[in-house]
């Protein structure tokens, strides 16, 4: 049965199937967490004034954390990790270490993305929350820099291509919305709204580049 299904599925469709599965699981988990949060904090959620951008940020953060956990679990089996990276044979100890560190950075990104909503819900003093997020952001930047320093030219090229696509798409979307807002046909956005959309664009660009370069 396994052979039949793997033969019938085209090569390009496999990453898309995985992505669809991740979104489906994230949707179910997100619904569950949201339902639980509404039960536990019945007054906090309305008071926190959650917007569509909070939901989008939560979904993105959930996806990042889920992806990181998936890579960490996969890295427990060197052969499986090797297959995931389309390598000949199992992943080496160095490749496993690199994959785990990258997964940690990705998971950490998701965690930081969640914090503004979490701090808002818990009623933490805003200045304390911003200071904590800024500190974690500095730590995250150091981790990202280490990933970039360790990377070879394929990964660096992928980072550059992702940044280029995200810049032009993000810039374009922002311009269209800003023009519509200036003409009075679109509602004003907050910095958080803009950031959530830019993050979604960046992750979509990253996914597309990774699939194209055979990294995903």
């Amino acid at each position, binding site marked *: 049965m396994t052979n039949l299904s793997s033969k019938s599925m085209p090569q390009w469709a496999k990453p898309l199937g995985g992505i669809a599965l991740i979104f489906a699981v994230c949707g179910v988990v997100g619904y569950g967490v949201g339902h639980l949060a509404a039960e536990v904090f019945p007054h906090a959620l309305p008071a926190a004034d959650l917007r569509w951008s909070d939901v989008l940020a939560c979904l993105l953060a959930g996806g990042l954390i889920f992806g990181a956990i998936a890579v960490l679990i996969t890295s427990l089996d060197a052969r499986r990790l090797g297959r995931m*990276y389309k390598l000949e044979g199992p992943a080496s100890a160095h490749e496993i270490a690199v994959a785990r560190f990258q997964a940690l950075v990705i998971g950490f990104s998701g965690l930081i993305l969640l914090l503004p909503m979490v701090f808002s819900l818990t009623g933490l003093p805003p200045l304390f929350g911003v200071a904590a997020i800024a500190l974690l952001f500095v730590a995250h930047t150091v981790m990202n820099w280490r990933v970039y320093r360790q990377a*070879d*030219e*394929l990964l660096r090229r992928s980072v550059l291509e992702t940044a280029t696509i995200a810049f032009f798409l993000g810039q374009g979307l922002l311009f269209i919305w800003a023009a519509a807002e200036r003409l009075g046909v679109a509602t004003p956005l907050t910095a958080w709204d803009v950031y959530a959309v830019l993050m979604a664009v960046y992750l979509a660009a990253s996914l597309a580049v990774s699939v*194209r*370069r*055979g990294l995903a």
Partner: protein
Amino acid sequence: MNNRLKVLRAERDWSQAHLAEVLGVSRQTVNALETGRYDPSLPLAFKIARIFEQPIESIFSE
């Protein structure tokens, strides 16, 4: 761009890991090069040519 990397590697009975090590890149990069998903930078192309002792144009073609 097409390349003969996989054939040249097979002729020498080298693993992807060995080629990746001598080129100073990851195995994913070797795989991406061999499957045509990535065209190398000029310095990497020169390095590949040196390692296989062949001119660049005999390894890479349009």
